[in-house]
């Protein structure tokens, strides 16, 4: 994407000069005005990186098919997620994307990618990768599906190729609180318990969103536990880089996460859309430069450590707040 539109659409997440974890949930689809433009008006953001991101996902998935995980009992939820998202895409871009019902079959047409598919709901073999694998080839978001039972939410399926330091292969089948086991503070502070109570009560069709952020070395979307050999070198380089070299290498990594209670299956659809902005570009916006600098300078060590930004935190603060 060209730097101007990247900046204009970037979901800058920091609302104050200090940052702590909170149950930061808000209604979806409400646009947010920023210093540079706007984000958040849609559920599924299709941008200029669409084809490139999907090609990257395809490459990762081919090398490591375990990025797609589906426990058998959530198959209906996978179909529900697929149809819900395809309908959503079609409503958003009717000129290029359409889902039609033709003689008991569904026909999906995606002119952005040059893809056509015909299938019957429930026929997993009709789509490459099954319903969830196919959905992952049409939207840029990573996908997790949570089943609700026994008064809890369970991460029972997903397609995650752009994770930040975790692995779906490891987390699949876990409860919401277990998934968050490694996160500091959120358990003691009640942040997570409140979030879960809220999510358990979401009614069919309700949609919310939240943001999460971190710093990452290198511009790749895949920062998963599995791919650490690939990004370890950039990380090592960032630990000693300064000034312009650091600002080109280190990125603010923002996840816009959507939480959607699906209708027919009742499952919770969790979508994670990742955006990257090098500090050098971010610094062109003085308000962002100052705010990120101040947040990083004040961030408690446990949160900084968990986010994996300790090795280059001081250098980033120096770059952002220095003269």
């Amino acid at each position, binding site marked *: 994407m060209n730097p101007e539109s990247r900046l204009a659409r970037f979901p800058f997440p920091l609302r104050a000069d200090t940052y702590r974890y*909170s*149950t*930061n*949930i*808000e*209604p979806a689809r409400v646009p947010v005005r920023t210093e540079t433009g706007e984000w958040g008006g849609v559920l599924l953001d299709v941008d200029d990186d669409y084809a490139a991101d999907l090609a990257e996902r395809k490459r990762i998935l081919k090398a490591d098919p375990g990025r797609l995980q589906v426990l058998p*009992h*959530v*198959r*209906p*939820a996978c179909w*529900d997620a697929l149809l819900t998202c395809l309908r959503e895409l079609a409503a958003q871009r009717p000129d290029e994307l359409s889902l039609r019902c033709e003689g008991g079959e569904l026909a999906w047409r995606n002119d952005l990618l040059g893809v056509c598919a015909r299938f019957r709901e*429930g026929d997993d073999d009709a789509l490459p990768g099954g319903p969830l694998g196919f959905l992952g080839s049409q939207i840029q978001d990573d996908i997790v599906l949570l*089943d*609700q*039972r*026994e008064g809890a939410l369970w991460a029972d399926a997903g397609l995650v190729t752009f994770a930040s330091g975790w692995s779906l292969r490891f987390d699949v089948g876990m409860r919401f609180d277990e998934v968050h086991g490694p996160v500091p503070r959120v358990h003691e502070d*009640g942040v997570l318990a*409140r*979030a879960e*109570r*809220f999510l358990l009560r979401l*009614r*069919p*069709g309700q949609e*919310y969103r939240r943001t999460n952020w971190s710093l990452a070395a290198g511009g790749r979307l895949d920062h998963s536990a599995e791919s650490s050999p690939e990004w370890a070198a950039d990380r090592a380089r960032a630990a000693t880089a300064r000034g312009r070299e650091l600002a080109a290498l280190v990125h603010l990594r923002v996840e816009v996460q959507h939480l959607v209670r*699906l*209708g*027919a*299956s*009742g499952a919770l659809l969790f979508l994670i859309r990742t955006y990257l902005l090098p500090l050098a570009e971010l610094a062109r916006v003085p308000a962002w430069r100052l705010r990120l600098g101040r947040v990083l300078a004040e961030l408690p060590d446990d949160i900084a450590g968990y986010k994996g930004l300790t090795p280059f935190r001081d250098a980033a603060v120096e770059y952002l707040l220095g003269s």
Partner: protein
Amino acid sequence: MTGLELVVTRSAEVVPGVRELVLARPDGGPLPAHPAGSHVVAECGERRNAYSLTNGGAEPREYAVAVLRRPGGRGGSAWLHERRPGDPLVVSAPRCAFAPVLTARRHLLVAGGIGITPMLAHVRDAVRWNRDVELLYAHRPDAPAYAADLDRLLGERLRRTSDRREFRGLLGDALRRQPLGTHLYVCGPAPLMELVTDTAEAAGWPAQRVHRERFTAAEVAPGTPFTARLRRSGRDVAVAAGTTLLDALHAAGVAVPSMCRQGVCGECRVPVLAGQPQHRDEYLDEHERAAGTCVLPCVSRSETGVLEVDL
């Protein structure tokens, strides 16, 4: 209640005393999808009653409910029995507290009388996704509502009777026969629900595998009106029943930051100087609640006629 304004498209007595109402949007457009076991809260004249949806929940264009006339009841059912095609009807968006547990190895459904309604949706969903399901249905001799539909959907997997002794026998048998990992779902008159859950307990069923349809309380009550007194600006803002304090403040031009508007994020927190808040949020802990020195205006209200806040 932010309701769906629908019209009755069909109204028919399916068995004596049970009327099926089919509802649609006035323009025939799509309705919110919902899982099996969902219900809507219908505004029936002065009353609000919960009714299970019997239709399939994927991309519905019609909602179907079945209403048992309760002669001694509070009047909602009699009012609904008078609805005819073309009449308007307001219902809530669907909610669900009785969905199938998808990890179950088998689903044993037990219904009595009008309690068949949520089971009809369960059966449709189970058949559609090829889940192992079995239904035991007790009904009055003259009122086997939906028996023909169920026969067609389930065949051998449906057992029904209007004889109490036979029902007890079939129930005891069904509860003993199930493989480990079966989940039991019950809906019907209170005595039947009790009989089924007691029998299950005696047969060693763990409570987590026994599900009863109990309709959840209709939407948070609108609350009573009160006045918000703003200490700093010296203004009084009236908060009507059904309006949140946050909305009343915004309407009066008072800026209060907010995010979730659901009482979970804490963003809208406002200090309280006098009066007693009525906490309805998930955010404050027990101490903060008891102290009453702050309030989350997106959901909470006032116990006292006036609530003075630091704004």
